[in-house]
């Protein structure tokens, strides 16, 4: 059964234009309160169906190995996959252009109105929702991991190292990543 869920039917080769990439990543960016991965997954897999769950996690995984914001790296690679260099540029422009303006606008607003306590209270409630969205994303993404102890082993260690022990991410990755890659290589 797990193999069925794993080998999701390959999506038909969608043709996606630069403008569509710009719009998609603008939407992702402008709805991303408290982290972009939830919205990237919702938009690219559920709404537009440009990627399967597995393709999404794999691209995100590569993005995580590279320096910089993970979803920005995802935007570059998704844009490049569908429309080459200009596609990547369009995705990045959509993903970073708006938040740049919005964050400065919020800075100006905050300097004027930030003292009001109800603003702080509203932000507190929204932060709790943001945490829930991230948790829900993990639960959905976890469905692509094969039901074998070897796969889960490394995932659990990564969670304990970073989430429980609070060790620096770089150390945890340096310790786990080579073994995980070798294991996947050998046992596939």
């Amino acid at each position, binding site marked *: 059964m797990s193999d069925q869920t794993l080998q999701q039917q390959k999506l038909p080769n969608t043709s996606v234009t630069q403008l569509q990439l710009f719009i998609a990543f603008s939407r992702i960016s402008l709805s991303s309160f408290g982290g972009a991965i939830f919205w990237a997954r919702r938009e690219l897999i559920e709404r537009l169906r440009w990627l399967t769950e597995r393709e999404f996690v794999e691209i995100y995984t590569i993005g995580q190995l590279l320096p910089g914001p993970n979803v920005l790296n995802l935007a570059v*690679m998704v844009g490049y996959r569908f429309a080459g260099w200009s596609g990547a540029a369009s995705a990045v422009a959509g993903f970073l252009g708006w938040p740049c303006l919005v*964050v400065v606008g919020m800075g100006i607003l905050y300097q004027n109105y930030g003292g009001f306590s109800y603003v702080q209270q509203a932000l507190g409630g929204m932060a709790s929702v943001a945490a829930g969205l991230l948790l829900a994303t993990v639960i959905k993404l976890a469905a692509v991991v094969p039901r074998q102890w070897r796969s889960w082993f490394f995932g659990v260690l990564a969670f304990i190292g970073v989430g429980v022990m609070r060790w620096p991410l770089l150390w945890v990755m340096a310790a786990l990543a080579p073994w995980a890659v070798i294991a996947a290589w050998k046992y596939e």
Partner: protein
Amino acid sequence: MDGINLGALFLQFLILWFLAIGGPSTIFPDIHRYVVEVHHLLTGEQFAEIYTLAQVAPGPNAMYVTLIGWYLAGWKGVVATTVPLLVPATTLTMLVGHLNERYPDAPLFRGIRRGLTPITIGLVLASATILMRTVNHNWRGYFITLVTVAVVLRKPWNPLWLFAGGALAGVLGFV
């Protein structure tokens, strides 16, 4: 505040972003050290304020560096702190993305994609639990978080409504 060397700021941020493997949170302590502790460009309180604002603004969480630039030197500052964030993504990521599309069956890429996917999921789970513990100060905060999870997994509603609900709960003093 008038003695800011934007060139040095740009260079420092550029170096840091190339080290930000795994995401922006890895270099957060170093940015804090540079801006607050070493060069006294911002106070610790201003820094915290900027960070919180950027967290709740739409867009990637890394945008707090943009706001730092704005606080320091207006639009010129925005350029000096934001462009460095783009450089690794537009060079290194582009190159790796290109190779991955070109040689999808190379053993190294297969191994990375298959082997590291569970680690990625473990890391996102770690972020989620850290975030949950940071933002929730009592059981009511956790309640909102868990209701969010339940709704997202069961209903196709647009989660922006959940944010509206969360904001309302906050204003009414529930959190």
